[in-house]
């Protein structure tokens, strides 16, 4: 507002709205290009049939092992208030700092997250044949190849830090690739910083909540920071198990179950991971594990997912 009687302020659209607009736009463009594409004359269908069948089989085999999440057009909003929070989304695990909001959704088959504000660590299983995982924050798009990384956002300022693995950051047409211990900031989009420790990376200078969020009553929230909290052995164990899933699922399952016996915040996460892995592998323990999870952690971050998986198992749907 320039003054009490100045021109009215243009109220910005929230990220979730931009996200809807963009998805609607690309869907429309895809439909339009499919309609306008000229049909070939006299197609030799008999030639295409075996190729298509093989491709369909390969896709089915490639995706069936981890395609337990429905494709959902409506984003799921996850908000961490005064305390940090964590959640699983498909094969990704997300740890939200306090005062952070994310939208999780599927774009086509690809799981995606939109950082509305704040910061979060993402642990994403190696993609391999899986659809890519994308994190968006403002104009930055972080495409994930299988890694653990952190995205912090304050209004239009975005920081990305990679713990291990590789991510690609697309920002206003430019693309940079980050590997372990490298970071990127939208303030200097062409530069990649390398650090021995993450603690040396400074977050955005003047942190404030975006306009779409109601301001807190008294003290402003602490700014999102790229500095990890303390070294968490259990978290490291969990992440190792996640990486193990693709190659040695039995060992990962044993490790998850071991980790779930504790009383730390990683116990429910590990128990749900074990249950999810069991469902993926059609393991007969799946139902019991989901039931145990719901008994132990009725209000757990993955309670809804657990109920949904259990319902599917009861109904016999894949």
């Amino acid at each position, binding site marked *: *507002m320039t003054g*009490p*009687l*100045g*021109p*009215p302020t243009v109220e910005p659209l929230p990220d979730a709205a931009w996200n809807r*607009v963009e998805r609607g736009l690309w869907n429309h463009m895809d439909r339009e290009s499919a309609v306008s594409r000229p049909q070939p004359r006299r197609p030799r269908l008999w030639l295409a049939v075996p190729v298509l069948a093989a491709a369909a089989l390969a896709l089915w085999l490639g995706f069936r092992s981890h395609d337990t999440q429905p494709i959902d057009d409506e984003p799921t909003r996850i908000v961490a208030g005064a305390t940090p929070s964590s959640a699983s989304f498909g094969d990704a695990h997300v740890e939200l700092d306090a005062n952070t909001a994310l939208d999780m959704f599927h774009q086509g088959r690809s799981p995606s997250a939109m950082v509305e504000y704040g910061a979060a660590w993402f642990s994403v299983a190696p993609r391999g044949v899986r659809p890519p995982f994308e994190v968006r924050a403002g104009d930055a798009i972080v495409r994930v190849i299988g890694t653990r990384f952190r995205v912090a956002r304050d209004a239009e300022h975005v920081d990305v830090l990679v713990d291990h693995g590789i991510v690609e950051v697309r920002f206003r047409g430019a693309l940079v690739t980050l590997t372990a211990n490298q970071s990127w900031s939208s303030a200097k989009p062409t530069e990649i910083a390398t650090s021995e420790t993450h603690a040396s990376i400074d977050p955005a200078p003047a942190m404030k909540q975006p306009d779409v969020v109601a301001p807190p009553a008294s003290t402003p929230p602490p700014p999102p920071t790229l500095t990890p909290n303390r070294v968490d052995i259990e978290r490291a164990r969990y992440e190792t198990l996640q990486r193990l899933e693709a190659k040695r699922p039995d060992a990962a399952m044993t490790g998850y179950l071991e980790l779930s016996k504790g009383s730390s915040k990683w116990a429910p996460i590990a128990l749900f991971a074990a249950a999810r892995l069991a469902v993926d592998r059609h393991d007969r323990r799946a139902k019991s594990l989901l039931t145990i999870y719901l008994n132990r952690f009725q209000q757990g971050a993955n309670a809804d997912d657990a109920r949904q998986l259990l319902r599917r198992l009861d109904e016999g749907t894949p």
Partner: protein
Amino acid sequence: MGTNVSSAARDEDLAIARRAAGGDRVAQRALFVALRRAVHHTLYRILGSNRDIEDLVQDAFIEIFRALPTFRGDSTLSRWCQTITTRIAYLAISRRRPATIELTLVEDVVADGSPDAHRVALARDAARRLYAALDHLDPHKRVAFALAVIDGLSLREVAELTGSSTFAVKTRVWRGRRELYKRAQNDPVLREYLGALDGGDR
């Protein structure tokens, strides 16, 4: 404006337009990201709120992508998109059915009572009254008034965006203003707001 487009900027605009027109999704997305705020800004200025604006932003970009093969670089890509957006806004207000019920304008509750919060609430109220009055204008006048008086564009720029002559725009703004002042006779808040906008008139 068009004649001032530098050669490098023009080449850049033409290159991305050509790629996006050819179906390159990366170029289309880059264009969307680069222009979305400008598109939203133009729509908001003419319509006055974010109500229904998501669909209109999407419509504007669909039209922009459809029309990209015709972009020749005579103006900046941004200004060219703004022209299309203005047309989308014009069509939207032309299609709108006239309001049959006057909504009561309620002043925002000022939570903390600070002068700043009060100032914001006053300005919001005035803006709501202005756009409620604009709803009664003919779409041509409304678009011209919104772009020239509220957004502060020059008459020549508004003429380019609306595909009209400068004289036509000037007439529409003048007539629009006259109608608004007539509506403001019994509304001191609106009258004062119009006066303030005219005070900064270009």
